[in-house]
Structures are given as C-alpha cells and as structure tokens.
C-alpha cells in the first residue's frame, strides 16, 4: 500500500547564504494493508519530515514514494489531491480549519468531499465526537477556541471520519488522558482490522506497543549515518 524507495530530502535556504541542509537520504520502507509501522528516532531525526514527504507536503529531492500506485514524489498536484481525498489520511499535530465552521462540519468534511450524503456524514461525525468525549454542546462551535487536547481530538475524529486505506498519524495520543488514549488506540486497531496501512509516530511507549506491528528507526536515514 505504501512503499518508499531510496527517498532523500534536503532544504536549500536561499535567503540564508544558500545553505543546503541535507535531512534525509536512502529512506526505504514498505507498509502492507492491515499493518501499523511505528517511526522511531530521537527528536529531530526526521520522523515528521518523512511523514510530510509521504503526504506530499514536502517535495522529495529524489527517490520514489508509491501510495496505491501513485508516486507522490512525481505526481501532479491534482493527482495528490485525489489521493488525499480518497486514499491517504493524515492526522497532524495541529488543527487547521476555516474560522467559523462548526466542529461537527469540520469532522464531517472529509466524508462530504467523497460524496457522502450530508445526514450520513453528520451522523458519523457525531458518533466519532461522542466516542472521543467532545461534549455535544461544543459541536455547533468552531474548534478554533477549543483547548489543545480538544482540538487534537477533533483532529483525530476528522482523520478517522472517512475510512482511508492509508493513514499517517503524527503523535495521535500525545497530550490525551488515559481514557481518550484508549479510544484512539481502539480507532487505530479498528482501522487496521479493516485493512488500512498505517504509519505512526508515538512517543508514548505503551501506545506504541499496543498498536505497532514493527518499527522503523528514522535515524538510519539521516545523512550523517550514511556518511
């Protein structure tokens, strides 16, 4: 489902003396349907960078990033948009939404763009929000004013609304209490059971052990290690 082959990435800072900062080289990994792979490595090793490369948010310098047959490193913007709409979900650490849009609609949005009828999409969004313990009185409000933990749970609900065949999870359990963490882990297990290929970053060891089938150490891809 997800296959990376010899991916490298460097940043060129044109306005700071054209400094070239290599951040990743020779990254290769494969994730099959129903499998959850955990990315490990110290802070700054490039875990989030690797995820952003897979999502097409960063432009890979070389190599191949195949998701369901589409090479994200070479694809046209509209191919990547179609991939993100139908196939590839991403739960980032930050929630980015249009101001004024109610939480329920923020969560239902990924369903609406794949053509789910409004009622059905809202029902599913409501189910997820209740599961994640967002009080119903907040559903009609924009999540921009929510606390950090609430925003994160809204973000997770949004990420799990549509059943993406491939999922990228950037610290989905950080800053959640035990009960909510359990719910998130259940959602992840559920996604695995329906055959989703998942790449996750978990700092919480217990969470990591609970859902990950194997681990990839991102420090192996750091340019220094290769030199």
């Amino acid at each position, binding site marked *: 489902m997800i296959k990376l082959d010899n991916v490298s990435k460097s940043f060129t*800072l*044109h306005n700071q003396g054209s400094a070239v900062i290599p951040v990743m080289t020779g990254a290769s990994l494969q994730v099959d349907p129903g499998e959850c792979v955990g990315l490990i490595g110290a802070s700054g090793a490039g875990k989030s960078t690797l995820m952003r490369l897979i999502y097409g*948010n*960063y*432009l890979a310098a070389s190599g191949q990033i195949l998701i369901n047959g589409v090479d994200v490193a070479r694809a046209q*913007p509209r191919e*990547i948009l179609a991939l993100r709409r139908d196939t590839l979900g991403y739960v980032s650490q930050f929630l980015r939404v*249009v101001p004024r849009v109610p939480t329920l609609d923020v969560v239902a949005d990924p369903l609406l763009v794949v053509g789910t009828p409004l009622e059905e999409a809202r029902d599913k969004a409501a189910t997820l929000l209740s599961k994640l313990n967002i009080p119903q009185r907040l559903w009609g409000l924009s999540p921009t004013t929510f606390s950090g933990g609430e925003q994160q749970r809204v973000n997770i609900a949004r990420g799990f609304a549509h059943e993406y065949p491939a999922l990228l999870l950037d610290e989905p359990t950080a800053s959640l209490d035990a009960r909510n963490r359990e719910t998130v882990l259940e959602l992840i297990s559920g996604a695995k059971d329906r055959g989703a290929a998942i790449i996750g970053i978990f700092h919480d060891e217990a969470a990591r052990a609970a859902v990950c089938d194997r681990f990839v150490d991102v420090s192996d891809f750091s340019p220094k290690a290769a030199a």
Partner: protein
Amino acid sequence: MTPLLSVRNIKKTYGARIGCTDVSFDLFPGEVMGIVGESGSGKSTLLNCLAGHLEADRGQVIFDTRADGPMDTLQMSEPERRMLGRTDWAFVHQHARDGLRMSVSAGGNIGERLMAVGDRHYGNIRERAIDWLGRVEIAENRVDDRPSAFSGGMQQRLQIARNLVTGPRLVFMDEPTGGLDVSVQARLLDLLRGLVREMGLSAIIVTHDLAVVRLLADRLMVMKDGHVVETGLTDQVLDDPQHAYTQLLVSSVLQV
C-alpha cells in the same frame, strides 16, 4: 479529463515593461488555483488577460465551452466573449463598486445577469434574487436597497451573488477579501468555500494574502516581475518553498 481552462504562453507588455510573460497552466474542473506575489508582480495583469479585460500580446486561453468544446477565447469575437462573461464565467473585483451597479437595487443587480441570459419573468427573477441574497447572508428586506447603502462586506457578498446567480463554471477573483476587516474576511472565505464545493466551481484567485490561499486554493502559482517562479500544491509551496522569492515571501508573513 479535459482541462476546463488551458493557458499557453500568455504575454502582456506595457511598452518596454513586462506585465506578465510565458505563463502556461491547465485548470481542471473543480480546481481552485491561487496566484500570489507582491504588488507589481503581474498577477492582476495576468488575471485580466485571462478574463479578456486586457488584450494579451500573444498566447492562448483555451476554454472548454459547453456547446463547442475547447475554444481559444482570445480568438473569439467580442460578442461571443461577452456572452461567455455573462454565462460560464464570472469575475469578482477587488472593489465591489467595480462589479456592481451602485444606482440599481440589490435585487436589480442580481436580476440583471439573469435577464442578460434571457430570463424575463419578473416574479422568477425576484425570487431567485432573494434566494441568492439569503445564500450570501443578506437579509431579504434589503432587496430593494441600493448597494451604496451597504457596508463594504455586504457589497462584496452582493457582488458574489450577482456573479454566481447564472451558475458559472469558472470564477476569476481579484483580491476578493482585500480591504475587508478580518471577521468579515473569515465569513466571506467560509461562504466562498461552501459555494465552490456545492456548485463544483473552478476558480482562479489572485491575492497577496497567503492565509487566504491556504484556505481556499488547491494549487498555487507564485509570480515575481511578470514571471511564474514556482507552482505546486498549495500546502507544499507554503511549507516547503523551493524558489528564493517564495521562501522570502513565506518567511515574511507576520505571526499573529
């Protein structure tokens, strides 16, 4: 899939100065493309060339018309192009005054576009005008007021209603949120996003506000000195800019 709009090598000069040059891109149905750049980068010149408000020196603007398939709009006769401008195309100006008739009522402003495409039944026209006022969140009882009695944000929403009432497929927008205060901007952005999705519109939005394109545009084109310096997915261009100018633009945004 046939692109809705294919732009090839558009060039426009003002005497010896370059307005914009070598601009080519394809826009597909349902896509929203943002064009960003500083003042004088040629983004408005380009938009006006595409929409036929300015005559390009050379190049092609091929639009996939409903009746005859892809046609170069720059080779069309003036009446043909005007017809396109009233039906499948819409243009939202930065200043609502440029896109509205200020001495005609709000309902008249919306109705005029309907009459231009052959609608003659007064009751129907008024009914649709009121429906559209509702969609852009203007109270029904303002239908007989002139836009000069409206606030800036209301005028902008009225301009959008006037443009979208005929169900266009391609909307050109020049700084649609420029000059509005942020709370009105947010409301307008939300409205535009909803309309783009509901109606399956394609749009080209010129703006210097990077936050606006992040929310509205799928794709981004960055212009400097009349040239396109970078294109790509909106979030990729903003989060991992490749060109020196884009890096400068992105790093210059003030944090709130």
